[in-house]
């Protein structure tokens, strides 16, 4: 388990359980590997059930320790998913921008999470494999700059502007228009990013944005949502935490702090 190299300031630290969901082969594991190890390579560890990794993300006011559950993609493992998203405070629902069916699957996961996961779970919709599209080539250069100094808020705005420009992508492998996914994300109150685990575009931004979107209230107890809800009943473990978050309102509002991980 690699840890962030950021200096250990006595900032309040709290852990956040994050689960990755999505169709097989959309690059869930690669995203995590990029985030945790800043690496991209063929994942030699087969994912049985789910892989568990941790990574710290330091915000100006606090440190977030992500406990990442990277679930197996094979369809039949879907019935195990409730075990992993139980009590998760954040979820990354990943699809492949070159594969429309994966967005459909992602929508199902979003619906599943909204109905079954902890109330107030922060969901980010992520279109991966941006490197296979034309915009991926364009933005590849910008990305490091963004990640270096600019605040996440700016990054998001920039991404927003990009999206508009990117909309009509032509002659590349992209099959899911940015606008289609982003408008869906807006409707459902999700964070939305397009990333490339291969080039690293937007990967860190996703996690930073999630860290910022986690409501303080659910961080107080370290592991806010549902701590102490005893029995592990599959799929029905609805925690007693009633801190509901309207993401539609607060998503952009809270995304002002930068992340130095």
């Amino acid at each position, binding site marked *: 388990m690699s840890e962030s190299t950021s200096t250990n300031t006595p900032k309040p630290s709290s852990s956040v*359980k994050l689960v990755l969901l999505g169709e097989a082969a959309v690059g869930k594991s690669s995203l995590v590997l990029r985030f945790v190890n800043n690496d991209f390579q063929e994942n030699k560890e087969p*994912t049985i*059930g789910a892989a*568990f990794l941790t990574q710290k993300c330091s915000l100006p006011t606090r440190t977030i320790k992500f406990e990442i559950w990277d679930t197996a993609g094979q369809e*039949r493992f879907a019935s195990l998913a409730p075990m992993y998203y139980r009590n998760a405070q954040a979820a990354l629902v990943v699809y492949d921008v070159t594969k429309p069916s994966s967005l459909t699957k992602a929508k199902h996961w979003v*619906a*599943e999470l909204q109905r079954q996961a902890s109330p107030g779970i922060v969901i980010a919709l992520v279109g991966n494999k941006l490197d296979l599209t034309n915009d991926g080539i364009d933005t590849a250069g910008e990305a490091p700059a963004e990640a270096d100094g600019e605040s996440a808020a700016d990054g998001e705005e920039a991404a927003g502007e990009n999206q508009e420009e990117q909309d009509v992508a032509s002659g590349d492998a992209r099959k899911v228009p940015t606008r289609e996914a982003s408008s869906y994300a807006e409707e459902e109150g999700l964070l939305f990013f397009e990333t490339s685990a291969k080039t690293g575009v937007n990967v860190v931004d996703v996690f930073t944005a999630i860290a910022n979107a986690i409501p303080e209230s659910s961080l107080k107890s370290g592991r806010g949502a549902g701590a102490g809800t005893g029995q592990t009943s599959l799929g029905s473990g609805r925690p007693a935490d009633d801190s509901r978050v309207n993401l539609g309102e607060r998503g952009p509002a809270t995304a002002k702090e930068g992340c130095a991980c």
Partner: protein
Amino acid sequence: MMQWTSFVQKAQSLIDPANFTLPTLTSSDRNPSKASLFRQQFRLPDSQNPLQEITAELILPIPHTSTSHGDATRNLDRAGNRYAGRLHLSERFICFSTQPTSFAPSASLGASTHWAGQTNGTGPSGNGFTIPLCCIRRVERLNSLGHVFSLALTTWNGALGKQQNPDFVPQRFTIQLAGSRQACERFCDGLKKGLRECMKEIENLRVVVNDCYSEYLLSGAKAKAQNGETPEARQPPDAGLGMMFRYPGDARKLRDRSKMRLWGEYFRENGRNATLIRQPTFHKLIRVGLPNRLRGEVWEITSGSFYLRLRSPKLYTDTLSKFSGQESLAIDEIEKDLNRSLPEYPGFQSEEGIGRLRRVLTAYSWINAEIGYCQAMNIVVAALLIYMSEAQAFFLLSVLCDRLLPGYYSTTMYGTLLDQKVFESLVEKTMPVLWEHLTKSDVQLSVVSLPWFLSLYINSMPLVFAFRVLDVFFLEGPKVLFQVGLAILRINGEELLDIQDDGSFISVLKSYFSRLDESAHPRSENPKLRAITRFQELMVVAFKEFSQITHQTITEQRDKHKDAVLESIESFAKRTSIRNLGPDSKKLSMDDLGVIYDRYYEVLYDRQQRDKLLEEERRRQQKKRVERTSILGPPVDREIGRVGLGPSPTHMDYDAFRDFLAATAKWAVADSPSPSRKDSTAEQGSFRGWGKTSSLLNSKPEPADHEFMQRLFRKWATDPDEGISLQNVVNGLARLRGPRDIMNNIQYFFDLYDDNGVGMVDREGILRMSEALLFLSRRGFDGTITPTQSVEDIRANENEQDKLSTYERFLGSVSSFIRRCFEYADPSHPESRAAEGQKETDDAADKLGSFSIGDDDEEDLIDVDDGDTKSTSSAVTEKPAKPESENKPNNPQHNRALSQAANPALDPNNPLHITLPTFRMVILADELLEQFFDSFFPQSFRLSDHGLHVLASSSLSSNLTTFSNIGAAKPQLSAVSGASVAGASGGIVPPGKGLRGVLDNIVSDGIRMAAEVKKRMDEAQRELERSALSRADDEEEEDDDEYDTRSGAATASAMAGGISSWGAGVYGADPERRSVRDTDRDLLEGAEVVSMRGKDDASLLLDDDDNGHKDAHNSNPPHDDPHVISKVEFES
């Protein structure tokens, strides 16, 4: 020597239940059959059943090799070992176990399930043997003391090689049977029979045994030692990739050599592979870890996969060649994982290893398509391939998936989830403090333990240790996984009590696994204690401290949690499935979708259970023990059909669809059980153990079978041959039950009959439509159709008793529907004479309209509306039979005009059709039909908004009016239909007596009419064929024809009425009935005539408007019609 009892034997064999009943196959594995317990204990293939069993004593000879291998104490221990136990005989195996278990039909289940032997579980536990009958070379009955019945068995052990060693001593041991003489004789007879049948298998045995390393070890190695180089020194058989890429671990450290020597010794004394006899040493040798080259073979024997391979040695290669070049989803998935399976082992960095892995996984995915491929299988198979050949791994994988890890790799992985629940509950029971801590820290145990079970610790522990666990696992069964898991937690208990979250939990265990080879007591003074590794400690804790965890424990726990796990999977599947139903499903509420989903799968489930039981019954009746044709695959008596269990059928055939409709709509319930089904339920009633399912089936409404339902089926199904999917059903219902839209419903109905999709329904179709309308309405309307108040008011002025029920009025509507359809139909060939005829019709109708305002003589094909008493009998006869209609006192000329108008419409020489606008207009022109399509038709599909259980209640079903008993049940029908029939409370009036009788006759008339019209069409069609030239036939002649044929109507129409099942009984309306009607007519003259008038006025007015519409039906949007109706209401 056994002859003297043979006669008695035969007689007894007939009485002995074991000889003529199949072992009870229950439909639930909650109650595992004795046969399956038997198979599990001796690791037999699913084809085997316990045939005979007897208490016996196994007497082993003093090993002939013992003299050469000193050690007197051990010799003493072994010399002439005797084991008391039970001897079992199946079709192809003879098994002995020291455990006093019994699988005879008479044995209590406790005697079958209670195992308390050394291994406490399934598998070849205790001492004894499992020997295929084909391995037995000779059986001798020993002459011994009077009452002792001794058999000496000689096996093929070691004698299958081409060349025999001169000093070869065959394996021979004695069994003393204890029991009555008859019992012994019976057992021997069974044995003789089995031996005879199994003789042909010896060739398979030769092939299979040749792949066993033990054969090489015992013969080849010896030969080499003696002669240096002989032809006998053959290549060693394939003992896995390890032979090429080295076996994991340090062979010296593992003391592989001495283990090998010990095993060689054991094999020499106790037989090898197929003829191995288990003595205590066997279990000990396994516990200390198998030597590399024998590991695969011993796994094969202890798991029982050897017996599958023996049965069909070529299955693996055959499967590969049969499916070579084909593609599948599973293959794609396999390809993705090939490079990620034990990548640290050099064999799987090579093409050779990857190729083997690919072939085994692919072959299995073909042979068991239900499982196909599941991630984690790649890891398990990769591990197996290090120690076994491809074919061996293939069969062992099959045993793993089907028996050792049931449901683990299924598409829902319910077995995995279930065992996690079991594991959690065991942790809670055995380590309550730790459990409480985990619960408090909100750490979910299964996120850690799931991979342990799913990949058999191979991915969690260093390989050498994982294989040690596997050694015991294959011998003792799944409980080993639990014992090891519990031991891991117990050993790390203190550290685990400090953890706060998933992360630390995982890291504690990770570091523990990485130090398994270190000393468990590094600081101990005692060097012996220091030498104990953590892994050894783990094994001791697992099998000593958790020895109370037996197979029984696991089975009980699985039973306990099974429902909850399946339900959670199913609710997950349901959520997912409903969410995936696409945009159309949004028209229905979530509740509705839930109801559809449940009902859909319930029907599929029920049908599967029924099929299964019928199949069992069929087999039982054959009184033959038919061996399963396929060697591999899920156990024969496993549970099937539940969504949570894995792949279940996803499509309904037409019969299942009928069941579904019957559960959804009242009209789809049959009037009376069809004879065929009756028979089958009677059969089912005789099943043993049918219990719950039986009552369940019996309470189901019997589905009707009607052409309308067939049309619905074809309309909904994307591919009728494939059946109808949930998606199809939802889409179909979404259109009907979506936002209320009468136009949509009318069009939907029209489309059902628009066979060619050209927007036209022909004559035949019109008749079928009217039949469908009657079919759909025959069980009443549940108040969805109410005649307008104004009409009621008018009626109220008249005799209360003479009110017609809604249903009867609906009949009238249907009749006018037919009439109007024909009236307004378009000719299919405008240039033909039909056009003129049509025009005449129009004229006639126009005239009629103007003529009959304020009058009451509008004629309907079914003359319910008509207040005139003549109508009852004229309903059928009206148009076709002029003579009779002329007899009528009232407006004969009008009748004539009408029939003249109608006749051309029925003339097959003039094909005609109606279009959707026409159909719409005709429907909207009638208040009842409009209501029918507006509310009744869509609402007759009951979803979440209706309590359906009413249907199942028998009291209602007795109330249901059927056409075959319509006379008697009429009053109830009225009650059901919700229409207020004031006079109906007077009780049942027999048909032909009074008003009710008349109405009954009207009903049957309606049906007769449909049949009649149809018959006429057929008649005319035949006529047409006979003389295509006689186009100029005038109407009189045709009418005469009609009249003639009608005399035989009763039978002819019954034939013509192949339309549907419901009509058949009624078509046989007899002449007597008609005469009865005549008397009724007299009775009814007077008040009733008047009472009808009001309504007729209304319908006449409607007709006027109809005509108006007809004239401009192309330009006038049909939704003007509601105005018409309200106008009528107002005026009347």
